[in-house]
């Protein structure tokens, strides 16, 4: 292949994953935590697609599409929870969610 080989893509995927993890750990707004989880999933997707190119087989791309579908369902449930929090006037701060009252 012309251009960068797979190791470069894997380094980039690792950096993306770590950036997303940093966002999940540092931020307190559940919206931004969800966005950071998306970044982590995309880092994993990049690694999958890089390996698909490396081995010359599309299995990795199929996995990446499955990951995208799962990410979409995760966003639906997460945003549903956030909307429920917003409707009940709960402050959007994960540090203040300490009880599991129904």
């Amino acid at each position: 292949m012309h251009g960068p080989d797979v190791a470069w893509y894997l380094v980039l995927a690792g950096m993306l994953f770590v950036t997303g993890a940093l966002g999940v750990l540092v931020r307190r707004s559940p919206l931004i935590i969800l966005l950071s989880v998306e970044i982590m999933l995309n880092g994993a997707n990049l690694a999958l697609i890089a390996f698909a190119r490396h081995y010359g087989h599309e299995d990795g791309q199929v996995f990446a599409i499955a990951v995208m579908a799962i990410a979409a369902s995760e966003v639906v449930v997460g945003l549903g929870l956030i909307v429920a929090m917003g409707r009940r006037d709960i402050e959007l701060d994960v540090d203040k969610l300490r009880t599991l009252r129904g």
Partner: protein
Amino acid sequence: MANFIVWVVWCGAAFSCIASALAVISFRNPFFSALSLIGNLASLAVLYLLLGGEFVAAGQVLVYGGAVMVMFLFVIAYLGDRTDQAPWAGGPSWQAVGTVLAAGAILAEVLVALALTTGGHLSHEAHIGRSFGSPASVGRLFLTDHLLAFEVTSIVLLVAAVGGVVLGSHARALEDDARP
């Protein structure tokens, strides 16, 4: 010459990918974070194209950059102006310092594992045909080798849709109860 152009495109996409990811986690306003995530997804689609994943790149832009992000923006608009505290406000707390150290440790671990286990033998890519990553070949894999995963994914999507509806209507019922 083609090699050089690929490197330039790769460097540009990689830079904008990391920069927009950092922007997502450092904006105070979730609206700007969501917009930066769209930039992140678009630059990742460029990288997927460089890796021969045409169908995945198109799906990334349509499904992720289109549908999922519109859903995010709707929810952010619905919740109104609730800007988070600035992530680095109030000086470095011990939690933030610990988090950055932990993230740096994960990155170092990934890089060391990569260097140790791959050595240098990742540079010989397999030869691929022209149809690599086309919708036809990906779809054929989905309906033959990965049929079970395909069907299970559809069930997961159905469950998520039902869950979203239940969460929304449950919140409305609670709202009615709370009203005097």
